[in-house]
């Protein structure tokens, strides 16, 4: 395995949106180790500029300062260009799973999660 210098053209792109930089970086490291190309942003309102890089999957935190991840998800699913990008919502609160799925999320994962758990969910949604 030479995951550290992967073929960028074949690598799957994952966009992670979370307002907590620590968790953002941790996930970035993990996913890069697994060979994903990772884009991160702290600002849920600036997602548009990442869409031209065509992410294959979006990991979206629900509770972010200033904006609700579920609203972002609804927008994504309502926009033809982004409708088909799988969205996995993340939250520290298990109670919001239902409402996450109602807002159009393809999957949900609760914090704190096992790395294997996260990886298997992601790979399930990226063909």
């Amino acid at each position: 395995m030479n995951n550290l210098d992967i073929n960028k053209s074949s690598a799957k792109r994952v966009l992670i949106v979370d307002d907590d930089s620590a968790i953002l970086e941790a996930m970035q490291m993990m996913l890069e180790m697994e060979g994903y190309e990772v884009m991160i942003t702290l600002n849920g309102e600036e997602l548009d500029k990442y869409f031209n890089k065509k992410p294959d999957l979006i990991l979206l935190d629900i509770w972010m300062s200033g904006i609700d991840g579920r609203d972002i998800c609804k927008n994504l699913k309502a926009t033809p260009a982004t409708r088909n990008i799988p969205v996995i919502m993340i939250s520290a609160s298990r109670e919001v799973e239902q409402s996450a799925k109602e807002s159009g999320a393809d999957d949900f994962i609760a914090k704190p999660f096992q790395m294997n758990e996260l990886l298997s969910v992601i790979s399930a949604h990226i063909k």
Partner: protein
Amino acid sequence: MDDKEKLLTIQQASSLLGLNAGTLRHWAQENKVRAFKVGTRGDWRFKKEDLQEIIKKHGEENYHIVNKYSLISNFLISNANSIQKHATYLHKKFLGGEKFRTEYINKYQEDHIKIIKEIANNLQNKNISKGTRFFNKFGEEFGKEAIKDGLTIEETVDGIIFLKQAVWDKLKKKGLLKKFTALEMFDINQVVGTYCDVVASRIAFTYHEYFKHDAHKAKEKLVVSERRYRTMIEQSPLSVQIMSAEGKTLIVNKAWEDLWGAKLEQLKNYNMLKDKQLVDLGIMPYIKKGFKGMPVLIPAVKYEPNKSVKDASKILYRWVRAFIYPVKDESGRILEVVLVHEDITEQIKSKEALRESEERFRALTNASSDVVYRMSPDWKEMRQLDGRNFLADTGKPDSKWLQKYIHPDDQRRVLEVIDEAIRTQNVFELEHRVKRVDGTLGWTFSRAIPILDQKGEIIEWFGAAIDITEHKRAERELKESEERFRALADNIPNLAWMARADGYIFWYNCRWYEYTGTSQKDMEGWGWQSVHDPKILSKVLEEWNKSIDQGITFEMVFPIRGVDGEFRPFLTRVVPIRDSGNRIVRWFGTNTDITKQIELEKQKDEFLGIASHELKTPVTSIKAYTQVLERLFQRNGDIKSAEMLAKMGVQIDKLSSLIEDLLDVTKIRSGKIIFHEEFFDFNELAQQIVEELQLTTDRHEIVKEFAATRTIFGDRDRIGQVISNLISNAIKYSPKARRIIVKTEVNHDNITLCVQDFGIGIPKEKQGKVFEQFFRVSGEREITFPGLGLGLYVSSQIIKREGGKIWVNSIRGKGSSFYFSLPLSKGK
């Protein structure tokens, strides 16, 4: 003419019907009743059967026209002759009228009959003034006639008085007066009595007018006073017997007849001065004194029943007290002797009963009292006192007893009560302080009864006293301790109160009144309900009544309204106070304002909620970094470092599950926990959890004993959390065991899962608490097991909300079995 003989005259017929003769005549004329005219004058005659028919038919409806008094007047009219004869008899009998000349008797008979008939007529008409006019006129003519005939005023007036008496006697004998009320009797008396009196007074007035000379005036006065005197005697409730100076009985009144059960006639041959019984009874000397001219009080004596009295069987004996009084003329000659008797049998009987019980009383008090004593009738002197080591003895009469025995402060009160007892001849009874035989102060309860002689005089007082010093001391101590208690209870910050065994609240502390702003009067008994929230009151009452019925401690939180009108939550605890016989004598209740506690509790929950949520995010990052690092080390071949990081990961998992528990608790307590219910396969879930946890332990083998699976409806994750919690506990608390059994069982309406371990177990007394917050089990030698003690609390809350049950069976040192069951019917 047989038929004619059977016909009734108008008087007979009206008497039979109870009608006025005039009314009946009127009916006959109007053909309302069948009547026959007979004789030359055409008098009406009636057939008895016809009259009986009328009674049957019209008796009821005609009653209103039948004068209530017509029976009397009809009787008087039809019996006027015999009444008059009775009057003459009375006149002769009482006033010795033998000397009357027969021609006058016959002459005035007619007039008397006329009076009777006129009374009868007036009784029906009840026209008093008309009657009075008639009788005035009648009396005047009667008087003039009598004066002409040379009759004395007494002879003439007495005739009328006896006539009146005769009318009464006959009416009474016939039973005609029975049906009347007191008011009606008064009416009758008005008519009968008044008319006779009118006649009598008119006669007297006529005499007076005729003889305007003093000599006659005096005589007339005598007649009036004699009449008054006789009336008085007649009506006296005391038995009166008037005798001649020689001892022959002249007059007795009704009370005498009742007392002796005899009549005047029976005394024809009796002479009081020769009565041997009176000699035997020892009262003859008193009687003789009376006949010699001295008024004498004759002491009470007991008379044996008079054999000659018919009804003697009824009268066993009589106690009679008498007064003998001689009546003299101006020269001092004894004319008559009056004897007045008073029957005091009942008084004597009650005093005898008292004396009979006296001996028994003495015996009883001797046995049951600490002290017995005897006092003179006026209590001036103590005759004897037997003190029995409580008080000093008194052997011979002592007039200084008050100073000797009674505490100076109590002497006045003792004397007051004695005075009252002497005055009323009643029992002396008092609690007072005494000087004891050892010189110390004591308390006694003293009681004395008067001992009476045959005549009802007090001979002495017999008393008994008991030592109540201890009792008084205990009473005072109780009072003091009660006062101390109340002072204490008034000063605690809680509201406090006491109730009787039946729940009636009789005391509240000051705080209660301060907080509620109520008064004692408002609150007494069940008045407390007014400061309760009406919405919750029924629940409070239900619980309180349950406590009272079952005698169990009451504990509940409910709001109580303060003086400011605001309700604040109070924790109320009420405990039963029992006596030595384990009976509840009181309830003691406290109400503690828990507004602050609730506020703090809420703050704590909020803090925990925020804290645990905030903790979760960094823990998630730490975990992610740890996992990244672990992989990096593995990849680089640094296996040791990788293993260390793996161990670190396990600890981070523990930390995050603790945080998870804390979050769950705050959610449960604030009611924010949300369940995502769905249908799922129960065994599949259990299998999954067992597999996950098997990975965390090398020591234990988790054995599955599953029944056939069922689909149930509920929050799969939450129920999984419960199973996981139970198995984790089993692992944690059985460090030396090798096996854990997870068993499922399906009953007809529920599914049960049991996790059995063979660890340290839970002591019986703590088993009820395992599902409470922050409960933790200690091991041998107080080894503690890590954990916040929240897992079972969270589990029990989850199972409860899923509509199931959770419980435990455990034996200390042998292990525990935790069970939960869930309904199968849910969601279907």
